[in-house]
C-alpha cells in the first residue's frame, strides 16, 4: 500500500513528536513565504523606533547645557573657597551655622568594597520648602528671611513644585545686580510675642542682623534635593532637570528616594509617547487575557 503520508508526517512518526495543530501543506507553504518577510519588517519597525528614541534622548540631553565639566570646575573651586566660607560665616549668627562633619564608614554589612560616601559639613538645622506656594513671591520672601536668620541648608524637592522659584530667588542672592542688597533683614519680632520663647536673646551669641556687606556664596549654602518618583530609572535626567530649575551647577546632597515612594513609580518617558514601536511578537505575549482563540469565523 502506498504511503500517502507527507514528509512532515513521516518525520513526526519517526521521532515520535506530537501532532501539530493545523499543520497542513498549505499553511506551511504560506508560512514559509511570509513569515520571514513579516518578521523582518516587524523587527525593522521596532528597531527604528528604538533608535529614534535613543537619538531623541541624546539630542535632548545635550540641550540641557549643563555638563559635568562645569560641575567639576565648581567642585575644584569649592575646596579653595573653604577658608573664605569660614570667614564669612563667622559674621553670621553662630548657632545656625553649626555643622556636623560626618564621614561615612565602610560598609560593615556587606562584603563588597564599599567606599566612604562623603566628607563634608552639613548644617544641623535645615529649612524645608514643602508646601510653600511659589505664587506671589512667597518662596522668595521666605527664603530671604531664612537666609537672613542664618539657615544655610535648604531642603528642596521637585515634587514641591517650587524649585524654579527657589532657583530664581537664589540666583538673585548669589548674583546680585547692582542695586539690590544681598540679604534683607526681617524686622525682629516684638518682645511681647516672644516673652517666654526667646530665651537666648540675652546671650552674647544671639544672632544680630547679619552683616549686609557679606556676599552670599554658593559654598556657604548646603542645598538638598530629591529624586522624583518617575525617574528612578533616569537619575541623571532628573538631576539635570533639578539643577536647571534651581539654576545651580551642583547639589550638595541628593536624596535617592522621594519621601514616601521607596517603591519606584516609573513613567517610561519615551515609551509612553506614541513614537515607540513595540515588536508585536513580544507585546501580545504579556498581560493580555485570553484573546487568542476568541473569534470564530
Amino acid at each position, binding site marked *: 500500500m502506498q504511503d500517502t503520508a507527507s514528509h512532515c508526517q513521516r518525520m513526526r512518526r519517526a521521532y515520535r513528536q506530537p501532532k501539530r495543530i493545523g499543520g497542513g501543506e498549505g499553511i506551511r507553504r504560506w508560512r514559509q513565504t511570509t513569515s520571514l518577510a513579516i518578521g523582518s519588517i516587524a523587527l525593522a519597525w521596532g528597531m527604528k523606533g528604538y533608535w529614534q528614541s535613543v537619538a531623541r534622548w541624546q539630542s535632548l540631553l545635550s540641550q540641557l547645557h*549643563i555638563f559635568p565639566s562645569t560641575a567639576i570646575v565648581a567642585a575644584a573651586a569649592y575646596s579653595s573657597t573653604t577658608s573664605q566660607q569660614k570667614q564669612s560665616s563667622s559674621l553670621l549668627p553662630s548657632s545656625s551655622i553649626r555643622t556636623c562633619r560626618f564621614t561615612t564608614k565602610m560598609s560593615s554589612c556587606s562584603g563588597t568594597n564599599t567606599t566612604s560616601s562623603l566628607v563634608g559639613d552639613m548644617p544641623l538645622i535645615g529649612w524645608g520648602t514643602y508646601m510653600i506656594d511659589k505664587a506671589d513671591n512667597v518662596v522668595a520672601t521666605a527664603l530671604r528671611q531664612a537666609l537672613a536668620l542664618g539657615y544655610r541648608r535648604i531642603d528642596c524637592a521637585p515634587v514641591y513644585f517650587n524649585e524654579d522659584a527657589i532657583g530664581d530667588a537664589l540666583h538673585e542672592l548669589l548674583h546680585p545686580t547692582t542695586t539690590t542688597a544681598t540679604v534683607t533683614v526681617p524686622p525682629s519680632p516684638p518682645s511681647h510675642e516672644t516673652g517666654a520663647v526667646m530665651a537666648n536673646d540675652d546671650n552674647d551669641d544671639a544672632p544680630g542682623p547679619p552683616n549686609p556687606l557679606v556676599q552670599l556664596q554658593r559654598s556657604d549654602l548646603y542645598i538638598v534635593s530629591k529624586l522624583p518618583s518617575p525617574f528612578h530609572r533616569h537619575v541623571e535626567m532628573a538631576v539635570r532637570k533639578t539643577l536647571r530649575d534651581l539654576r545651580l551647577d551642583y547639589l550638595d546632597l541628593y536624596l535617592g528616594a522621594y519621601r514616601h515612594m521607596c517603591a519606584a513609580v516609573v513613567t517610561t518617558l519615551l515609551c509612553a509617547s506614541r513614537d515607540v514601536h513595540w515588536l508585536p511578537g513580544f507585546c501580545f505575549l504579556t498581560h493580555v487575557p485570553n484573546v487568542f482563540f476568541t473569534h470564530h469565523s
Partner: protein
Amino acid sequence: MYFLRIIPKHFHSAHFWRCQLWWWCTGHVPPTVHWPVAFYPISMEDLTQHRGWINDDIDNSDNGRNIDDSVSIHETWSGMEHVRRLGLVRQIGVCNMPVALLHELASRATVLPAVNQVELHPLLQQPNLLAYCRARGIHVQAYSPLGTPGYKEAHEPSVLDNDVLVRLAQRHGVSPAQIAIAWALQRGTSVVVKSVQALHLRDNLLTKATVDSSPFDADNNNQDRSGMIHLSDEEMKEIAALDRGYRFFRPQDWWGDKALAVFD
C-alpha cells in the same frame, strides 16, 4: 508562563493567525508592558524647554497603580552613584528607608548612602533604625520633627501640645518646638523644619542643644554652653516613653497594599 506554552504550539495553525488578524484589525493594538496609564507622557521638550513642572503628574501614583515593582533599588542606586561620579551632586542619600531596604541596598552598593531622611518626632522615634544607621555611619535626618503642626488633620495627635513636651518647655523656659528640636539634635539626628513665619523660623533656629557626642567631638569641645538646652537622662527617657510609632505620612493611605513593601 501559560502563554509561553500555548502560543508557539499554535503558530502552525491558520486559525490562530486568523484570530490574531481579527484581534489586531479590531483596534486592539498590541498592549505594552506596564503601560503608565495615569501618567501623561512627559515630553522631553517640556523637560528641557520649561523651568518648573507643567502639572503635578510626577507626584501622581494613582492610588499605587502606577508603582512599578520591577524597578529595583539597586538600579536606582547605581544611577545615583553615576551622578555623583559625574560631579553633579556631592553626596547621595536616601529617604524613608527602613532597615530592611537599607540592608538590601548596602548589599550591592559601591557607595553607602550618606543620609537617610525619615520621619522622626517624639511620637515616632524609630530607635532600631537609628541604631542601625549609627552603626554604619549613615547620618539620620528627621523630617517633620514637630509633627507637621501646619498640615495635620484635626483628629491626629499633636506633638507640640503634648503634656510632657509642654512641661519640659516650661521647665527650660523655651517653646515645645525648641524642646522637640533639641531632643532630636541630642539624639544625633539633624532636622528639617519648615516655616514661612519669621518668628517660628527664628525660634527653630535658635535652638541650641547638646548634640550627640559621637560624630561631633570637635564641635562639642568648642561650643559655649550658655543658653543651651540640655535634656537630662530622665527627661530623655520621659520623651522616649512617648513613642507610639505614629506616622503622619502614611503610604498605605495612598497606595494600599503596595505600601506594604515599604514599611513593615
